[in-house]
């Protein structure tokens, strides 16, 4: 999802009997739903997986501000503009909650920033698509934040305390994001023919990338089993994707929009929708850095980091000077 490329050791999940005593004690704690806290003993793999997952999740929140930020100056009304600013500000906040959670595992903020800017750390593939029209802001709130909620709700029960607590805060705020997006879509679908077409066009472009957000199919996803044993992850990628499709299709119908999937149909027997295969070749291209906006997003983050350097250093120098003066006065 927001951490689509979390690679594991590739080893299978050990049974309790195969584990060393410390490892077994840890697994038993996880099995008993006792939260793991930063200073507790934990396997290296658990720590590494979490650092990767949480930092990629944080980077996604931060980079995720860019496609929507693109429309702040062009929002159709002052109210929409204020709402969009609030929404983008929330994304910044979510990034900060998550960075702090990752820092409790022993990685510094600067190290994480460095990994993002060097391209070593990934962020969600979804933010490498362009926002061409105002309807894209509606589609992002409705679909992208909708998919994010689907993923983040179970993460509230993650075994790692700080991540779980950050997710509880995020989920409280996320529902506003999805509703404001759907509200934009409703308005457009209630409008002129051109506005309806704009809404349909946005759904056409955002549908498949939204399904990709859940990550590769379980069959191809080696890390899933270990993450699930550690209760970092509660549901498989395919389960969440199915849930998202089932929830979203009626919402599209309410808008009288057509989901761009000829294979989509209700399957009475399984009590869910059948749907077409995601274009995984496209997904892996975007993750590898070759999506339509990868270069733009990274350039924007690098520019923000280097343009802000004098400001960060200036505030730090001021704080140090003030402290020295206070000590001298005592």
């Amino acid at each position, binding site marked *: 999802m927001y951490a689509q490329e979390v690679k594991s050791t590739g080893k299978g999940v050990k049974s309790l009997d195969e584990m060393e005593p410390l490892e077994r004690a840890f697994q038993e704690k996880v099995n008993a739903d006792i939260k793991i806290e930063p200073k507790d003993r934990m396997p290296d793999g658990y720590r590494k997986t979490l650092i990767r997952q949480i930092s990629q999740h944080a980077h996604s929140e931060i980079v995720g501000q860019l496609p929507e930020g693109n429309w702040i100056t062009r929002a159709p009304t002052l109210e929409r503009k204020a709402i969009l600013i609030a929404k983008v500000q929330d994304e910044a906040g979510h990034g900060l909650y998550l960075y*702090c959670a990752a820092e409790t595992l022993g990685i510094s903020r600067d190290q994480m*920033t460095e990994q993002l800017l060097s391209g070593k750390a990934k962020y969600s593939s979804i933010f490498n698509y362009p926002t061409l029209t105002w309807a894209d802001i509606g589609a992002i709130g409705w679909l992208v934040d909708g998919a994010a909620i689907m993923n983040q709700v179970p993460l509230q029960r993650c075994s790692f305390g700080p991540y779980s607590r950050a997710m509880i805060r995020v989920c409280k*705020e996320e529902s506003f994001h999805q509703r404001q997006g759907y509200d934009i879509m409703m308005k457009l679908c209630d409008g002129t023919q051109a506005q309806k077409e704009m809404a349909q066009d946005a759904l056409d472009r955002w549908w498949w990338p939204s399904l990709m957000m859940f990550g590769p199919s379980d069959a191809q996803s080696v890390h899933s089993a270990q993450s699930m044993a550690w209760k970092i992850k509660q549901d498989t990628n395919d389960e969440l994707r199915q849930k998202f499709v089932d929830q979203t299709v009626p919402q599209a119908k309410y808008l009288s929009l057509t989901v761009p999937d000829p294979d989509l149909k209700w399957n009475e027997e399984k009590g869910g929708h059948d749907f077409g295969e995601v274009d995984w070749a496209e997904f892996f291209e975007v993750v590898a850095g070759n999506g339509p906006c990868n270069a733009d997003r990274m350039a924007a983050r690098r520019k923000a980091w280097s343009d802000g350097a004098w400001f*960060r250093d200036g505030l730090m120098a001021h704080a140090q000077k003030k402290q020295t003066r206070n000590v001298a006065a005592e």
Partner: protein
Amino acid sequence: MSNEWPLWEVFIRGQHGMAHRHVGSLHAPDAEMAINNARDVYTRRNEGVSIWVVMAGDITASAPSEKGPLFEPANSKVYRHPTFFDIPDDVGRM
């Protein structure tokens, strides 16, 4: 990329006369900026009426390994809870 801003722990007192409660942490160059940043990061929806910030390095925490010696002695002292005592209904409200 050196000179990272220090880490602060943030505590917020909510609306209803509750105690300050730990809500998370953030980086800031000094206490004043930490308060400003905490306002933006942790009270965007009226969550608080007061903010405390403390440098993370100034907090002393109990170690997970001390959990037994620190907290187990309380386990056997169930009489500290009012429900330990059976008071007949006839006594009335107590």
